[in-house]
């Protein structure tokens, strides 16, 4: 009986939620922006590239001081050396990317129609390695993050331009990422959207939660908590763990789809990575 009540209540519930039948990424993004614009009417779209520091003057001043002697500089230098060092077969990273890998980060993640999957910069770096007979590198930090940081540094100030091609697979990948962003998870039963949309700008323990808009502009980022440069997906895993949800593997299909949705939202914002964060 109770089961029946639940079932019918859910049926009514699902009728009430008039989900748009066709995904419309552009209007999704417009809605998120309108939401934030209303909540934080004193900051501009570009300011979102600075995360929580756009919302708090004190935190911002401390951060600007740190950025005067960027803690990620060594990582970028090392990334450049790695990027330019040829593989054993004589080829290099440059051979795998458009424009030799310079100034291209704004176009990622990309959807590859042929293999029907989302390609992030980090995923492409390892694809490049393995297709040239090198071993794949760990995705969270270390050499791969340095190479990615160098590539990001050559793309500074370029405007994010993620494209969702007119392809069912591409839209499905975007939708899967979107769903993941809004799903409550973990023992604490919280969604990305809870902290980074609903209560964004609020204080969570010692931290101000940043708006989801602009999250992806400055990665890989140096975090004092990591004492190193780390990738965006390392942060995803960290946020999953915070709510006691088991994280997905870095560069799994799930996280790449999430990054696709998450970055599309930031289209038009300037890249400013690598950045530093507490």
């Amino acid at each position, binding site marked *: 009986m*109770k*089961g029946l*009540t*639940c079932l019918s*209540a*859910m049926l009514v*519930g*699902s009728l*009430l*939620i008039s*989900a748009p039948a066709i995904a419309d990424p552009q209007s*999704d993004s417009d*809605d*998120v922006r*309108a*939401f934030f614009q209303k909540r934080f009417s004193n900051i501009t779209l570009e300011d979102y590239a600075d995360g929580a520091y756009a919302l708090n003057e004190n935190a911002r001043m401390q951060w600007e001081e740190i950025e005067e002697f960027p803690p990620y500089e060594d990582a970028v230098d090392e990334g450049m050396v790695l990027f330019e060092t040829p593989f054993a077969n004589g080829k290099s990273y440059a051979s795998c990317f458009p424009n030799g890998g310079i100034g291209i980060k704004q176009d990622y993640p990309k959807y590859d129609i042929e293999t029907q999957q989302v390609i992030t910069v980090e995923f492409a770096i390892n694809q490049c390695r393995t297709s040239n007979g090198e071993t794949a590198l760990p995705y969270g930090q270390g050499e791969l993050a340095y190479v990615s940081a160098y590539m990001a540094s050559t793309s500074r100030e370029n405007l994010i331009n993620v494209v969702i091609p007119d392809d069912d697979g591409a839209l499905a990948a975007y939708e899967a990422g979107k*769903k*993941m962003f*809004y*799903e*409550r*998870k*973990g*023992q604490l*039963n919280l*969604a990305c*959207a*809870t902290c980074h*949309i*609903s209560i964004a700008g609020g204080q969570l323990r010692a931290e101000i939660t940043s708006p989801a808009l602009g999250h992806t502009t400055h990665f890989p980022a140096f975090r004092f908590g990591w004492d190193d440069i780390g990738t965006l997906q390392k942060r995803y895993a960290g946020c*999953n*763990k915070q709510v*006691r*949800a*088991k*994280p*997905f593997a870095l560069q799994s299909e*799930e996280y790449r789809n999430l990054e696709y949705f998450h970055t599309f939202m930031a289209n038009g914002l300037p890249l400013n990575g690598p950045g530093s964060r507490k």
Partner: protein
Amino acid sequence: MTRNKLQLLLLLVASLAMLTACIDSSLANESTTSKENEQALDIDTLIEQAEQALAEAGRLGFEWSVTSPLLEVAHATYKAGNHEQATALFNEVRLQSLLAIEQARYADENWQMLVPVID
């Protein structure tokens, strides 16, 4: 409050009530079965159920990070010969996994509730 917002709020309250009711009722069933488990179910069956539920939560992408470490503790406790404590632990693994599975089902139907509404 605009009509849209009111509708959303009502929906939110209704869904929360619904979720609680549904989880409560499934947990009520759980706790009777778990009592039964402690007495009647042999521990091997309980372990199998716990591990199956955990695998299902994982397959759905909703496994909690605390559950599999708990399973390890449960196995170690069992090995050490403390069957009563082990039973309680395996049962907790099973319950956490069932909640995670319920969470996946709930998310599947209600994830759009957190999408910002513009009016």
